[in-house]
């Protein structure tokens, strides 16, 4: 199975409330990524796990958290959602550097 699964596909959240998005893969990939995608913009890297090491981008460091309890699962956590968090969130994974990255179908988050 070469798919990256994301749950849920659609998420409606209230301003100020927490949001937790889930991603899984069964390809034994060492790296898992989270991207934020807004219309007509490039997918923006938020953070990624290389094995158990979490790397977070400087400009989103305080806005997003993540956990990877095992090799297969990775979550993206927003402590207090704002309207600006409305976007498509893409999870991706890869076996090692320089190899193909596999993407999930995304979770569309709408914050109201």
């Amino acid at each position: 199975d070469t798919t990256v699964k994301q749950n849920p596909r659609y998420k409606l959240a209230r301003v100020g409330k927490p949001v937790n998005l889930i991603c899984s893969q069964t390809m034994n990939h060492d790296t898992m990524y989270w991207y934020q995608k807004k219309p007509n913009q490039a997918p923006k890297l938020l953070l990624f796990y290389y094995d158990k090491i979490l790397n977070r981008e400087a400009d989103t460091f305080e806005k997003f958290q993540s956990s990877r309890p095992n090799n297969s699962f990775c979550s993206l956590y927003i402590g207090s959602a704002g309207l600006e968090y409305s976007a498509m969130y893409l999870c991706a994974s890869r076996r090692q550097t320089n190899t193909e990255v596999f993407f999930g179908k995304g979770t569309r988050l709408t914050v109201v």
Partner: protein
Amino acid sequence: AQSVDQPDAHVTLYEGASLELRCSYSYSAAPYLFWYVQYPGQSLQFLLKYITGDAVVKGTKGFEAEFRKSNSSFNLKKSPAHWSDSAKYFCALEGGYGGSGNKLIFGTGTLLSVKP
């Protein structure tokens, strides 16, 4: 700083024509470059990559790309184009993270419309 530029937001051509989607990058080290495609309602899919070696790399679905160090470009090509090639295409650059994995930086994408 690492960045990817796809200057053409939208490209339209007729079936049978040759297509070339432009991509330029900025990176201080030797680049690893990728092209991905996204069909409506589907996830991003890998097309091809350049790591080292031959400047022209071939990928899936009949696509190829040419790496040109002289002008920091990695343009995607296909001839002839087919209506089924209509999709959004993303160029990406792999950047180092100092030993704890590499990140993939994307351009804004080019929406390709191939008319029958």
